[in-house]
């Protein structure tokens, strides 16, 4: 396992990226390389632009300037090919929507189904090709939710919903996984399970990029850390980047950039 990012190829390459919400700059001059086949943690205080970065990568937000490429090609091509799986921090989901756990996870396959013959789209997926059903079953098994496959999605607890949404990202069998705070609000056993699943993904050669506030887990699991607070504050190995001095500086920089916010305080306690 190589930890030096310089020698590996880039899964995602960001050049000169600027993004803003209503003229309020959120990301400035971001130049980043996410090494392929590695597990990267993005660390920064609330409001640092981490989720915005993901919104740009998933195409739901247009950057003011800059270029984003995946494996050397425009990232939109990879989105359409189903190569990029995304798990949002706050879901835009109505939980009483009438779908089962199985159907929710099958949603991760919809990108691949576009490559199937047109007439196959007219019949339920599991009848015409076992690979979609197999992917869903494997994904649900990986997050230990197969027993709940026929439950309505709204009947699950918060941690179970999170695992199902992780399963949806896994079922996509994507080359790049974008996970926005996958560990927030889950109990310790679920956290362990999610981290182990992600380690398995990394070992299978996939690129995992996650936003997290969980420093102990980041120190233990990830290969690469990006510190961000509107601009890139550093990137490198977890041991170097997640030192107390570096994190304190990151929190202070949050204070300087948004003095009215109390995020710096809550952030430094979260680093514990």
């Amino acid at each position: 396992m190589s930890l030096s990012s310089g020698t590996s190829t880039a899964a995602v390459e960001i050049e000169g990226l600027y993004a803003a919400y209503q003229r309020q700059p959120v990301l400035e001059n971001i130049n980043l390389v996410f090494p392929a086949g590695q597990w990267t943690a993005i660390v920064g205080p609330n409001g640092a632009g981490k989720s915005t970065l993901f919104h740009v990568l998933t195409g739901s937000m247009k950057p003011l300037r800059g270029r984003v490429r995946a494996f050397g090609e425009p990232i939109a091509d990879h989105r359409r090919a189903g190569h990029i799986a995304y798990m949002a921090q706050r879901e835009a989901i109505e939980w009483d929507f009438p779908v089962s756990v199985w159907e929710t996870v099958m949603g991760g396959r919809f990108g691949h189904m576009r490559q199937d013959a047109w007439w196959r789209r007219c019949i339920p997926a599991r009848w015409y090709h076992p690979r979609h059903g197999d992917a869903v079953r494997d994904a649900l098994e990986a997050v230990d939710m197969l027993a709940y496959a026929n439950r309505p999605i709204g009947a699950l607890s918060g941690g179970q919903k999170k695992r199902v949404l992780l399963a949806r990202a896994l079922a996509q069998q994507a080359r790049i996984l974008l996970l926005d705070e996958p560990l927030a609000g889950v109990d310790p056993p679920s956290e362990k399970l999610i981290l182990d699943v992600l380690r398995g993904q990394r070992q299978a050669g996939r690129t995992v990029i996650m936003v997290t506030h969980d420093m102990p887990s980041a120190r233990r699991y990830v290969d690469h850390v990006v510190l961000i607070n509107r601009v890139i504050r550093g990137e490198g190995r977890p041991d170097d980047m997640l030192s107390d001095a570096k994190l304190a500086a990151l929190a202070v920089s949050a204070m300087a950039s948004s003095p009215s916010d109390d995020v710096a305080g809550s952030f430094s306690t979260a680093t514990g």
Partner: protein
Amino acid sequence: MELLSTLGNGLVNGLISALMVVVNLLPDTLSDAFQYRFMQRALLTSVMVGAICGLLSCYVVLKRWSLLGDAISHAVLPGVAIAYLLGWPFFIGAFITGALTSIGIGAIERHTRIKSDAAMGLMFTGAFALGIVIISKIASSTHLMHILFGNVLGVRESALVLTLVASVIALLVVWLCFRPLLLYAFDPQQAQALGFNTSVIHYGLILLLTLTIVASLETVGIILVVAMLITPGATAHLLTDRFRSMMLISVAVGVSSAVIGLWLSAALDVASGGTIVLVATGWFFAALVFSPRHGVLARQWRRWRMS
């Protein structure tokens, strides 16, 4: 054009004959009303309007688009009036102003600080007011009443063909684009991340909604069509936790309300649009009380058993 209208009329006659086979199986007291040609036409329109409204109703309810449906249906009025002025078929004008208003709502919502409910309220009342002003100048008030509240008994052959075409389009689109529409309704962020063009899906769905409203205009009218776009879906949502069965139940509620409502309006000699909507509302309250999982009785029963 000649060929198309013969084809349309032939299809309509065929469908009516097929419906009459079913109707004639019913006891005479029920089927007697349908011996007249205008009743047969009304029956066919009601069935189709009930079906497409029921289909689209699922998206309207799940996407919280009730107010948007209301807005589009009202915004159709100036189009009808202008088409009448220019001698165009009414549905062309209706479709244009309905679509323009929904695009206008989206633009205001996206580019200003006005929230969506205010944007809708503002746009559709404006369009509706314009329609009222134009109609007050050019047509009698009975005309206005028919547009506002519908008159399924007086439905014309041309409107019937339009409803038929709209139903076929809606059915095909929902069937062929089932997965993108489902994913967009459930989780638009995910649809975006999978590379689906969500603005095309969004506006496509709105256009489909507009088409449905225009097709339902002569049956239930502008004011009450929104009921047919909400009540069947809401009723189905109380009865099931699966999207496909929700669609089936919703279509069943739509069609049965339209048919029973039509029969009642003929039997009691009352306004057809109103009776159709009242029957649908009746279904909804029945589901609200008796639904096995989400009904009031079932909830009370569970609470009673727990304590």
